[in-house]
């Protein structure tokens, strides 16, 4: 019986060749477009200030394996950790099948083979079975994720001013795409399986889930062939579309988490960066013989515009903080443990990271989709809207948010991909204080107390040792220790 896909007038090899050429074009277009978007994002990250993150390869590798690859920090919360693990492992394993799809798509059609990895024999059986079980579990996990976000009320960390409109839609789009991809996989496998059964042939691989679904499909080989091809093309086209959706989406974390963890700080969390230019100034003040190193010059030898203290806009932040912004999957663990946010203040560490990404794409390059957060009246933000003044600081992040931070590091500790919102907060505080003298008045009082009294309170420095007056202790022999 002639298939609809292979009319007698159309030679089969030509038809197969056409599929291969089509696939090749699709593959090149998908990766080309992706590379074009990645270049833009790379350029955005590199507008940030220089920071040497080289060295310590062994320690960085260990961290990347544990935190990024091993998802160590996810396991602080068991339920989401297990759900996420299913989708993560599903993504890794099902990608092995994508390799097969690419080989089949490029060469299988021309040379008339199908399921190119089936030579693996029993390993292939296990691989296909694992794939199918994982794909089914992914659908279950995604349904749970959807419920956690969209039920009423949703899990608290999926709320907040920064998680309305595009970010909210984005999160759901990802879930819908993931389900669609898994369904296409089942559609393809089930049709293929039934086709082979009808032809009395054995399909390589084991398909525990598709085996249950064969009854749902019609028993016409022609229809099944179309279904198998349709499932195949939808699955791979879907993956290519998803790949190109990533740079516009929070889902980009599946790639960026790895470099982000690699380049995360290795020093204790309490250690804040020192500003080197200030160190030079202070040294020169305290020691007149200190020679201040010359300011960096442009490649042509001309003087560079002086860089401000702290950060007013994205290019004033270290590049690692910009990398942070592209690694954020907006999960809100940071915000949900932030003491300021928990007690109703405006500060949300997640918002600062999301604002940073929005601002980069507003000012510099943007990927295919760019819908920056528009904070409505419920955001209670008084933001500067004059375009020239709408920098990261004041255009998106208000001083009120920054001053609410207790620098407690809970956000840094909680981030599963080692994003450091605290560093961005401090950089913006530095700009407010050192460039604009715009600290809250009570902090200015504290500063002048330190300057004048050597203490943050208004005490006389001559009273500093009064605590030792009339200090008595009960007479008690020191304990004799036996070595």
């Amino acid at each position, binding site marked *: 019986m002639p298939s609809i896909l292979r009319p007698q007038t159309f030679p089969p090899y030509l038809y197969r060749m056409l599929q291969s050429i089509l696939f090749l074009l699709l593959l090149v277009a998908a990766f080309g477009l992706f590379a074009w978007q990645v270049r833009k994002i790379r350029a955005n990250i590199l507008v940030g200030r220089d920071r040497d993150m080289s060295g310590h390869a062994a320690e960085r590798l260990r961290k990347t394996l544990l935190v990024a690859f091993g998802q160590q920090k996810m396991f602080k*919360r*068991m339920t*989401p950790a297990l759900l996420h693990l299913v989708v993560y492992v599903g993504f890794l394993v099902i990608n092995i099948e994508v390799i097969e799809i690419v080989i089949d798509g490029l060469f299988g059609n021309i040379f008339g083979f199908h399921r190119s990895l089936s030579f693996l024999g029993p390993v292939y059986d296990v691989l296909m079975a694992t794939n199918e079980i994982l794909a089914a579990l992914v659908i279950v996990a995604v349904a749970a994720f959807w419920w956690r976000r969209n039920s009423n009320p949703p899990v*608290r960390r999926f709320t907040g001013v920064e998680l309305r409109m595009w970010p909210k839609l984005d999160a759901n789009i990802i879930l819908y795409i993931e389900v669609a991809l898994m369904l296409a996989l089942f559609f393809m496998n089930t049709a293929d399986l039934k086709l082979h059964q009808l032809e009395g042939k054995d399909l390589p691989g084991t398909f525990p889930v598709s085996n249950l679904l064969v009854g749902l499909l019609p028993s016409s080989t022609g229809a099944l062939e179309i279904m198998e091809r349709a499932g195949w093309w939808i699955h791979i086209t879907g993956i290519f579309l998803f790949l190109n959706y990533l740079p516009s989406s929070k889902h980009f974390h599946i790639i960026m988490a790895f470099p982000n963890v690699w380049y995360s700080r290795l020093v*204790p*969390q*309490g*250690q804040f960066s*020192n500003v080197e230019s*200030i160190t030079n100034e*202070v040294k020169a*003040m*305290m020691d007149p013989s200190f020679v201040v190193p010359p300011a960096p010059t442009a490649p042509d030898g001309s003087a560079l515009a002086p860089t401000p203290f*702290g950060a007013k806009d994205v290019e004033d932040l270290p590049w690692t903080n910009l990398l942070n912004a592209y690694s954020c999957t907006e999960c809100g663990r940071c915000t949900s*443990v932030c*003491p*300021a946010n*928990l*007690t*109703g*203040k405006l500060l949300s560490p997640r918002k600062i990271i999301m604002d940073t990404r929005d601002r980069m794409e507003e000012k510099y390059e943007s990927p295919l989709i760019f819908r920056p957060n528009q904070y409505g009246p419920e955001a209670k933000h008084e933001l500067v809207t004059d375009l020239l003044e709408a920098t990261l600081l004041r255009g998106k992040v208000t001083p*009120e948010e920054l*001053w*609410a*931070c*207790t*620098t*407690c*590091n*809970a956000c840094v*500790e909680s981030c599963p991909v080692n994003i450091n919102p605290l560093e961005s907060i401090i950089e913006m*505080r*530095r*700009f*407010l204080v*050192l460039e604009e003298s715009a*600290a809250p008045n009570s902090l200015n009082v*504290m500063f002048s107390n*330190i*300057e004048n009294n*050597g*203490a*943050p*309170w208004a005490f006389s420095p*001559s009273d*500093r*040792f*009064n*605590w*030792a007056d*009339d*200090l*008595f*202790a*009960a*007479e*008690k022999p*020191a*304990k004799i*220790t036996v070595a």
Partner: protein
Amino acid sequence: MSPSTPEAPAKKQINVPVMADLAARNESPEILFWVGCAGAFDDRYKRVTRAFVRILDHVGTKYAVLGLEESCTGDPAKRAGNEFLFQMQAMQNITTMNGYGIKKIVTACPHCFNTIKNEYPALGGDYEVIHHSTYLQQLINEGKVGVSGGESFKGRRITFHDSCYLGRANDIYEAPREVLAALDADLVEMKRSRANGLCCGAGGAQMWKEPEPGKKDINIERTEEALATLAGKADALANLGGVETETAAPGAHDLQGSIIAVGCPFCMTMMSDGVKNKEQESKVQVFDLAELVASAEGINA
């Protein structure tokens, strides 16, 4: 112990050794006790400073303080964004300490601890810095402090509030707990503890300003958690924000005699204010580790 003797136990005066005097005698201490501004000026925390000095004196450590030569480490300035003022303070202190050839520092303030340990080295100040919780733990482990002969804490409920600059900032979680464990008290853990500990609300220079508008103050949120933990109120604990997981405390306990233990002057202020706000100050007390150890050791006078 002889309950029949009515007169007060013999007491002695401690003359706290000052670094300048030691240097004049060409002596050097084993350890410099960095008092910190709160330890020197805050009336409540001065009691902690004095308790810690009693311990230092009791174990016979050769220590000294900078006295009038000490100045703010610059921590609040740095966290508030005033990097210039921080570095001025840091350079001044480093000049002082390097002039005396200081090698080892102990401090009862996690903010001073963090700043000197982590941020001074890049500015030329390299010292071995330890927090007093670690130091007390060492004294107990070495048997120099027996935590006996004074007040008994047996059976009293104590919960330890992790300071951010000791815990998350520097990964010190066990030392304060081991010190408390030596008291033989009933230690209870708050749901948000160790790396998940909730800030008292004072860090990042919040100590010196009013909080931004919000639903409640952070120290109230934290105190409520501490009180609910000490009282064993499962329903109160279940409603705490930020943590999605299970665990509930057992049956309810009387709060009388319970203690919130801290290891930081700002946590001390915040938690004490919180307890007062909740009108529980007649039942629940806030103590620093050094005070508890000095009491248990019976060296207060």
